[in-house]
C-alpha cells in the first residue's frame, strides 16, 4: 500500500508542478522567452492569500479571487514594463537576464514587506480526508483538490486554445508572429493574455503548494518554479499536454526518489532526469521537431 500512497503523493506534487509548468510553457510557446520570474509569482499569490485572510479578514474564496486577480495584473505588468521593451532586442539573452532580475526583485520586495522568517500558511481548503481499504490508504482533501484542479485547468486550457478565437490567435502567434500580424492578430495583446493566464494559474499553484506544504517564505516559489521549468522542458517546452505529463512525472519521480533512494538526493535526481531526457530526446517528450526552412 505504501507504493500507492507514494504514487498518490507524487501525482499531487506533480499536479502543482504541472500547473506552474503550464505558465512557463505557454509563455515560451507564444512570447518565445523563459520567464524565470514565474516561480516568484507563485510566492506572491500565496502571500496575498495569507495576508488577505489573516490581516484583512477576508473569506478564503474572496482571498483566492483577490490573489488570482493581483497575480494576473502583476504578470501583465511585468511583461509590459520589463519584457516588451526588449522584444526587438538583438539578443534573446537580454530578456532572459531581465527575467532573472525580475525574479530577484519580487523576492526582495517580499522580503522587505513580509520579512525573512517563515510564515505558516493558513488552512484555506477544507475538504475531508478520504479513507479507503479499511484505513490502509488515506487521501487528504488537499490532494484530491490539487489533482482535480490540475485536471480542470488542463481541460479548460486545451478547450480555450483550440476552440476560441483568442486561443487560435495564441496558436498562430506561437507558430509565426509576422504571419499572425498579417491576419490581423494583435501580437502584444496576445502575449499579455498569455502572461495573464500563466500568472493567474501561478496564484492557484501558490495556494495548492502552500496548502500541501504550509510554510511560506519569500523564496518559496523559487525551487518549485525551477522544477516546473524542468517539467516543461521534460514534456517538451511549448506543449500544453507536455507540461502536464512532464509535471506529473517529475512529481512522481521526486517522491519515489525521496521514498526509495534518499530524501537528500531527491532534487538531484530530478535534475538528472532532465539531463537524461535532453540527451536522449532534446525536444522533450512532446516537443515538436522544429525544422528551419532555408
Amino acid at each position, binding site marked *: 500500500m505504501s507504493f500507492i500512497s507514494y504514487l498518490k503523493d507524487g501525482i499531487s506534487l506533480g499536479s502543482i508542478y504541472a500547473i506552474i509548468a503550464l505558465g512557463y510553457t505557454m509563455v515560451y510557446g507564444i512570447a518565445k522567452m523563459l520567464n524565470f520570474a514565474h516561480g516568484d509569482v507563485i510566492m506572491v499569490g500565496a502571500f496575498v492569500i495569507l495576508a488577505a485572510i489573516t490581516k484583512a479578514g477576508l473569506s478564503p474564496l474572496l482571498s483566492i479571487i483577490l490573489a488570482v486577480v493581483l497575480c494576473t495584473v502583476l504578470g501583465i505588468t511585468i511583461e509590459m514594463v520589463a519584457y516588451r521593451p526588449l522584444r526587438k532586442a538583438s539578443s534573446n539573452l537580454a530578456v532572459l537576464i531581465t527575467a532573472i532580475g525580475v525574479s530577484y526583485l519580487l523576492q526582495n520586495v517580499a522580503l522587505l514587506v513580509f520579512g525573512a522568517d517563515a510564515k505558516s500558511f493558513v488552512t484555506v481548503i477544507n475538504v475531508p480526508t478520504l479513507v479507503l481499504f479499511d484505513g490502509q490508504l488515506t487521501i487528504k482533501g488537499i490532494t484530491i483538490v490539487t489533482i482535480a484542479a490540475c485536471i480542470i485547468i488542463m481541460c479548460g486550457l486545451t478547450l480555450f486554445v483550440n476552440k476560441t*478565437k483568442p486561443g*487560435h*490567435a495564441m*496558436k*498562430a502567434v506561437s*507558430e*509565426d508572429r*509576422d*504571419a*499572425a*500580424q*498579417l*491576419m*490581423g*492578430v*494583435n*501580437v502584444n495583446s496576445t502575449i499579455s493574455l498569455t502572461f495573464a493566464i500563466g500568472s493567474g494559474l501561478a496564484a492557484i499553484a501558490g495556494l495548492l503548494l502552500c496548502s500541501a506544504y504550509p510554510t511560506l517564505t519569500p523564496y518559496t516559489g523559487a525551487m518549485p518554479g525551477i522544477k516546473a521549468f524542468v517539467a516543461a522542458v521534460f514534456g517538451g517546452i511549448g506543449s500544453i499536454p507536455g507540461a502536464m505529463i512532464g509535471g506529473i512525472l517529475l512529481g512522481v519521480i521526486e517522491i519515489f526518489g525521496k521514498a526509495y533512494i534518499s530524501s537528500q538526493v531527491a532534487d538531484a535526481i530530478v535534475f538528472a532526469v532532465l539531463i537524461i531526457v535532453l540527451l536522449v530526446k532534446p525536444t522533450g517528450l512532446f516537443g*515538436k521537431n522544429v525544422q528551419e*526552412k532555408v
Partner: protein
Amino acid sequence: MAMLEIKDLEVFYGVIQAIKGISFKVNEGEVVALIGANGAGKTTILQTITGLLSPKKGNIIFEGQELTKIPAHKIVSLGMAHVPEGRRVFAQFTVYQNLLMGAYTRKDKNEIEASLAAVYKRFPRLEERKNQIAGTLSGGEQQMLAMGRALMSKPRIILMDEPSMGLSPILVNEIFDIIQSVSASGTTVLLVEQNAKKALSIADRAYVLETGKIVQEGKAEALLNDDSIKKAYLGE
C-alpha cells in the same frame, strides 16, 4: 487618385539602408509588378507597406490613409492582404483553420462562409484537403493556401511576394493564371517577382528595382521589349 501611393520611402536594417528613397503608385484595378534581382529590396517594400517593418522616412498612403502610423495588425481590416514570401502558412493548423485565420478580423459568420465557398471554388484542391495539416501540403498547395487565406479577408488590394518561388513550371503557370483571375474579379494586385518574364506578361505596369532604388518603370509590355531589361532580367 492612386489607390496605393508610396512616397520617398527609406528603410534601414540597422545601419544598412535597404530602400533608398522609392516612390511608386498602384491604381485601382491594376496589376503592378515590382521586379528585380535578389536583394533589390522587393520584399522589404512589401513588409514595410503592411507594417512588419517601419520606414525611417517616407509615406505610404492607402485610399487616403497614412499606413506608416497604423500598427501592422490593423492593416488587413483596411482591405489590404499580404501573401508573404515563402507562403508562411500556419504549418500545424489544418487547411480549413488556416483559411479561417485569414478571416480573423471579420465578424459576420455568413459572409465568412460565403468567402470560404468562393475560395474553395477557386482552389478545389484546398477543399479536397481541408482537414489536412498545412505543413504536409506540397509547395504549390501551400502557395494556393496562402493566397486563399489572404482572399479570406476580402481584400481590395492583395500584395503577393514571390508566389512562383520554388515551384515547377507547370505550377508557376497555374499560380499566374490564378493571379490573373483574382485581378479579373476586381482585386488590385501588387506583385513582387524574380521571374520577371512571367510577372511582366500578366502585369499592366512594372517598376524595376536595383539595390533599393527604382531604375526603370513603365508599361509591362514596353518593358518586355526593352533591350536592357531583356538582357538583365529576361535572359535573352
